[in-house]
């Protein structure tokens, strides 16, 4: 039985009316997020990621469509109910957005303003959250005195003050160096596994998405162009844009352009998850059995969701029928392949 999604977007659009022309920042977007997902939204700058994120807590009212959180359609809520529902959706940002005039502790207790908790209880909670993000000794500091990574930890602690079920991370690591990015992502992953927090991870970097998310949508000019599990994205990218994000495409194009092909040589790309029965040797064997000459030009692996995904660029020499036979064999073994043009032939 499939559980009801914790968040469901149905045909959501956001159009900004400008003086000269209207900008449709989010264009008929629909997707479901299940409880416990780390749900990635990837796209280039201006793709509409932030606008889409803001519709999920209704900071941005959609021009059209429905947003359903925990079975409740947000459009039906009064302003006060909406504020309560926002308390259950934490949010962190690229530039942290901490209050400069407040200490770390005061930043974390700000969301508890109307919580009914006593001052002492609020401070205890701040202390507990700071421990959770590994910053217990900084509660009396001001944001100005902290590094970027420390600021983001405070922002995470603050976003958890009202015990949310959902956390929206809008480019939370984009202003941080790689090591700090890794630390922050580790914290977020911990929150997902230990607190069962559903996380929406927005980024323009596949590195961030692939190391944290189990599902992902690719956003391009406000439209969802790809939606599925992260493994699917790597194994069966539908769009050219997706290929540029997953990195194989980018590098592979360069490789393919530089190949010196033999007469009647066809280039094939095969992508597969490494496992005891699926590896390079098996593919070589499948083709060898057919007696078609073959060589491996390039092989590239990435570690995603505890799995190794490999992308091979092969050259096979043969006539049309022989190539077709190879492709049929690959298909019957459920390999995902792609014929690529390019290369220089003699």
């Amino acid at each position: 039985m499939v559980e009801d999604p914790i968040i469901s977007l149905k045909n959501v659009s956001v159009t900004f009316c400008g003086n000269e022309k209207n900008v449709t920042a989010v264009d008929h977007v629909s997707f479901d997020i299940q409880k416990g997902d780390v749900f990635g939204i990837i796209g280039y700058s201006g793709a509409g990621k932030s606008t889409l994120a803001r519709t999920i807590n209704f900071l941005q009212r959609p021009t059209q469509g429905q947003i359903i959180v925990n079975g409740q359609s947000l459009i039906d809520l009064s302003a006060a109910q909406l504020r309560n529902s926002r308390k259950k959706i934490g949010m962190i940002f690229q530039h942290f957005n901490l209050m400069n005039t407040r200490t770390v502790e005061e930043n974390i207790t700000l969301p508890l303003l109307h919580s009914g908790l006593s001052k002492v209880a609020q401070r205890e909670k701040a202390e507990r959250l700071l421990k959770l993000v590994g910053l217990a000794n900084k509660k009396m500091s001001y944001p100005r005195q902290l590094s970027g990574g420390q600021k983001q930890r405070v922002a995470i602690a603050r976003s958890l003050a009202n015990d949310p079920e959902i956390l929206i991370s809008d480019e939370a690591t984009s202003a941080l160096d790689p090591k700090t990015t890794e630390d922050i992502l580790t914290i977020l992953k911990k929150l997902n596994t230990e607190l069962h927090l559903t996380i929406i991870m927005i980024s323009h970097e596949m590195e961030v998405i692939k190391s944290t998310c189990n599902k992902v949508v690719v956003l391009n000019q406000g439209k969802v162009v790809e939606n599925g599990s992260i493994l699917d994205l790597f194994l069966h990218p539908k769009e050219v844009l997706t290929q540029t994000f997953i990195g194989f495409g980018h590098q592979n194009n360069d490789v393919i352009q530089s190949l010196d092909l033999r007469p009647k040589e066809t280039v094939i790309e095969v992508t597969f998850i490494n496992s005891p029965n699926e590896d390079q040797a098996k593919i070589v064997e499948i083709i060898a059995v057919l007696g078609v000459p073959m060589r491996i030009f390039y092989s590239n692996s990435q570690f995603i969701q505890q799995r190794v995904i490999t992308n091979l660029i092969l050259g096979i020499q043969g006539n049309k029928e022989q190539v077709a036979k190879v492709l049929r064999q690959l298909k019957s073994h459920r390999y995902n392949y792609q014929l690529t043009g390019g290369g220089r032939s003699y």
Partner: protein
Amino acid sequence: MSLISKFFPNVVANQDQFVQAIGQTLYMTAISIIIAGIFGVVFGVILVVTEPNQLLENKFVYQIVDKIINIFRAIPFIILLALLTPVTRAIIGTSIGTTAAIVPLVLGCSPFYARQIQNALAEVDPGMVEASQAMGLTPLDIIIHVYLKEGLSEIVRVSIVTIISLISLTAMAGAVGAGGLGDIAITLGYNQFENDVTIAATAIILIMVLLIQLIGDFFIRRLEH
């Protein structure tokens, strides 16, 4: 004392009047600061939050407040003094005297201060406002705990500017019977050629300005961590 009576003979001769004038200037300034301060902050906040794309976006309210402020700021103060005579009489009961001067002072100063407050609050990082909205804070919470709190050092800065310009307005109000240091600088200093009175009045005003500047800077330094 003898030194004072040597250089400021007319100040000493009119000692009571001079001290009274200092009191009147302080009184006009203080009461006007309080009232204009309230008006300025309220309307400054209204401007900031009703602006397009802001917390309580409201084109109608924004346009009206914006226009009224522009109109009042366009009227020279000396003309405002004359223009407001009937209004002052309706509120205070008379249009002459120190208390009566508070009406034009407040109306002359509030629009300027509201604009200054608007500029000060516009400096508050929109990201902080977004974060506090995402926390589920109410618009009033956000005004108090984000705009006014985060903008406080900037508010103090523009308040100093406003208070200083208010003091100069009180001197001008003196010309129409409000009393104060501006008044004696004209009636004694200028009209009766008692130059030392003018110089002493100027010195007192400069000291006031300096003190306000010093106190303001002290608070700003304390606020900026």
